[in-house]
């Protein structure tokens, strides 16, 4: 008897939970209302079956519970009943399958007028390519991928010259305009998912896949990788921004073409030397850093990383949090480098400095630090030299007190919380697993041994 009552309560409770719990579908922002409709049909059919069979079972348990003088009925088969049940089940299944197949046919066939955007996945970030003025993509090849040509575009292909290359996890698309995403991966499987759009598809290295949708709401939608792609899978985030026409055009106009991206700005260390005078006041004449001035060592740090951080300061991605005292000091300094050329010049000058390891200021348990560093080593390298393809800077031989402070900042959300600071966001995820100050010190003690 209690079993039957519990079964009834579970059925009733499940139905109530379904209708009143706050956890339900994320509101739709695309044309794929038909998917939601298919789900609702399935919910109705399966809901009826769930309630009916379980209540019938509960009723049977009550009605035919063991009685000493009762006896079960002997009925090996009832062909008529079995055929009826089979038939009804068949109808129910057809009722759910038919709309599913219709909607799938719609998904498989992309409207001809759809815009085309290529989304490229790699461990562990997103980038995008737009076909540019000619509406055609240039040929790509995995074997051509380098740090200077991250998309692997064939430089000899005229179609590729005007492709817009967006080496950043944010893409813009146009409101109410169908868009087909061509999906490509450089390394492992990834998956392109925006919950509000409903559709998703894997990115498969060696081939190209696609999905399409028409965005129906303007705004910023988070893009998640939903196919396990390694240790930082959960940090592989991006954003799809749905714009009105004017905003969209303005954004497109600001993007770099492939041809433009291939023009390498060569920094001039001599010019950079003059501009470095301001930097040197804190970071030291040889970029050696200064504890007293709260300025880390610059010598030996990768140029791409220095450039990205200067831009992050300039664009308000870094050095704006109210608790980031020293970052806020740096932000106006970064602003003095007014264009790409002057940034390149300064970096060229910094790279001429001798790279002597920063003094060790932090003591800790290096053995414990070594165990903790296992996770760090996936991106920053076992030798701590950093891996540009993973957007991870060098740690070995750099300033320990500075890295400790930054790790604490990541952990506390002082750094890496700006919506557009995707790489900082990744480090925020990783900083969160370091338990306390002691663990940070142990980690630094180990990094100092690298």
């Amino acid at each position, binding site marked *: 008897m209690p079993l039957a009552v519990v079964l009834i309560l579970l059925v009733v409770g499940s139905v109530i939970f379904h209708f009143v719990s706050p956890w339900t579908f994320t509101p739709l922002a695309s044309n794929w209302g038909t998917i939601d409709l298919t789900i609702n049909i399935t919910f109705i059919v399966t809901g009826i079956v769930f309630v009916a069979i379980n209540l019938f079972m509960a009723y049977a348990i009550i009605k035919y519970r063991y009685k000493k003088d009762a006896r079960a009925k002997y009925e090996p088969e009832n062909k008529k009943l079995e055929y009826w049940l089979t038939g009804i089940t068949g109808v129910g299944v057809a009722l759910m399958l038919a709309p599913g197949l219709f909607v799938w046919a719609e998904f498989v066939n992309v409207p001809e007028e759809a815009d085309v955007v290529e989304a490229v996945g790699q461990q562990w970030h997103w980038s995008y390519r737009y076909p540019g003025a000619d509406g055609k993509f240039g040929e790509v090849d995995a074997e051509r991928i380098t740090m200077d040509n991250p998309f692997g575009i064939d430089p000899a292909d005229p179609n590729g010259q005007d492709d817009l290359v967006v080496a950043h996890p944010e893409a813009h698309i146009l409101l109410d305009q169908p868009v087909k995403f061509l999906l490509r991966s450089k390394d492992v499987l990834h998956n392109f998912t925006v919950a509000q759009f409903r559709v998703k598809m894997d990115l498969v290295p060696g081939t190209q896949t696609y999905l399409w949708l028409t965005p129906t709401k303007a705004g910023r939608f988070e893009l998640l990788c939903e196919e396990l792609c*390694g240790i930082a899978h959960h940090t592989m985030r991006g954003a799809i921004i749905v714009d009105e026409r004017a905003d969209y055009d303005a954004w497109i106009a600001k993007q770099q073409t492939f041809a433009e991206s291939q023009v390498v700005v060569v920094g001039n260390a001599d010019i950079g030397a003059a501009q470095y005078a301001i930097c040197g006041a804190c970071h030291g004449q040889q970029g050696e850093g200064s504890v007293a001035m709260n300025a880390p060592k610059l010598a030996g740090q990768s140029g791409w990383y220095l450039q990205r951080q200067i831009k992050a300061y300039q664009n308000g991605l870094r050095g704006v949090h109210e608790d980031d005292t020293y970052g806020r000091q740096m932000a106006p300094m970064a602003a003095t480098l007014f264009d790409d050329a002057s940034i390149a010049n300064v970096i060229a000058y910094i790279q001429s400095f001798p790279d002597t390891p920063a003094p060790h200021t932090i003591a800790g348990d290096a053995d414990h630090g070594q165990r903790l560093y296992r996770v760090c080593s996936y991106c920053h390298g076992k030798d701590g030299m950093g891996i540009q393809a993973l957007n991870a800077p060098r740690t070995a031989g750099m300033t320990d007190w500075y890295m400790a402070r930054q790790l604490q900042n990541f952990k506390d959300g002082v750094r890496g919380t700006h919506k557009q600071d995707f790489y900082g966001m990744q480090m925020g995820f990783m900083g969160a697993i370091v338990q306390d100050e002691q663990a940070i010190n142990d980690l630094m003690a180990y990094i100092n041994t690298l």
Partner: protein
Amino acid sequence: MSSYVAIADRDHEIEHHDPQTFIRKYVWSQDHKVIAIQYGITAIFVGLIALGLSLMMRLQLGFPNEFEFINPESYYQFITMHGMIMVIYLLTALFLGGFGNYLIPLMCGARDMVFPYMNMLSYWAYLLSVIILLASFFVPGGATGAGWTLYPPQAILPGTPGVEWGILLMLVSLAVFIVAFTMGGLNYVTTVLQARCRGMTLMRMPLSVWGIFIATILGLLAFPALLVSAIMMLFDMNLGTSFFMPAISSMGVDPGFVGGSPILFQHLFWFFGHPEVYIVALPAFGIVSDLLSVHARKNIFGYRMMVWALIAIGGLSFVVWAHHMYVSGMHPYFGFFFATTTLIIAVPTAIKVYNWVLTLWEGNIHLRVPMLFAIGFIFTFIHGGLTGLFLGNVTIDMPLSDTYFVVAHFHMVMGVSPILVVFGAIYHWFPKITGKMYNETLGKWHFWMTFLGTYAIYLPMHYLGFQGVPRRYFAMGNTDFLPESAQALNAAITISALFVAATQILFFVNMIWSMKSGKKADPNPWDATTLEWLTPDTPPKHGNWGPDLPVVHRWAYDYSVPGYEDDFIPQTVPPEQAPAGRDHGVVD
């Protein structure tokens, strides 16, 4: 004309040597009952490890970043090992190596498996595969963190934990497991086909045997696909082939592969992986049918249909595999075919559910512990089966694939449901296996806490999936479209999981205490009809049947036959002594 003489007809010519030494009796034993127990204990032991791993994951998900030893690296190792252990090394091994070994000869009226020596080798090879698997926790780099699906390219590239040794040991362990399974599986199939006692026609066999039989055939056909994919991946790793590896740029470095297809691996994996679901489910279907019939004192409803449904599900399970790959990037037109076959499989499955419920209808239901678990199974299986209709329907799979809806679905349908049957079956046959009765009160507590606790874990988990919470995420971080309450729900799920895990202690206490000090069991405590309850000794001795094999005169479900005083007629009772029941005295 064949000169073949059935094994049962040659019984008196075959010599039976009882093992004499302790080692031959209990260690290098060729007795199917001992091997069954060896399989069972080993499987449950690794299952407990996998349960522990799931708690580590739940701790991270419920209370993120609170524990230093749970970091992204170890987390992905936990999910991989948890999944692989639960599916292969626990459920497959326990249902086929454990219950298959114990029940097939006893229920078919055989003295043992047809190839006892190979049966023994099967267990030791299985143990070896378990040792290799567990060793991967202790090698440099640790176990693989590629996810239980082991998808390349990721599985063998830096960026995934265990790329040094873990993945190698995983693949080798799987290969050894498949060898073990093949030795056991050939035995089970041959024994069912060749060693049944006189009168035991196929259509008189208990559904437990049918379920295990069909599942074993599925295993023999499906595991080779996993074996070749494991070998091909080993080649890609070590011999420079590119079966699954296209030209890529991994962390800015060209690893030198060219031309392979990651999707090929997925096809091979799921050609094994989907039948694998039924390798676990069909024995559970069979066993639960018998539990329901015995404890409801009623024949299983629609026996023939039940047998044909098992066969149909088994057959269909080989043409639905790509429903795991709707969003894999395979040709989208496959979606039409696989959605259709997948939803068709719902029909025979639904028939089984109807027939279980109709077996209760007009029964005389004893709610003993095995029956509670059997009914609990029906409830969770209906739930898990219905959510399968969402995921099997290609369109609906798109928003739900790779979310917690999937995790909730497959745990409900191939985690909770089969495990409830495992518990029900262990309680049901405990008196036969040990000769002692279990403690009914502890058993009931165990049922209630497990049943309600697991529902509290998995019902809400579906709704996290609806919101779009992805599976295999170490942490969600700040994600705009998720309300903060999602984290609260995750914490609640974790607490339920810890609770369910803790209550399993009741089961082990009950088993161990009852084995030592339980009441002596009646040879046939449930008044069941099937042969295993009719052995001359309880627990059955080597050779099972004493001097003479049983002879069967009726099907396995003559319960409450009108015109007979007892409410059950054992299969060995000839028609002269009792009403003929379903068979009307005619052998099909």
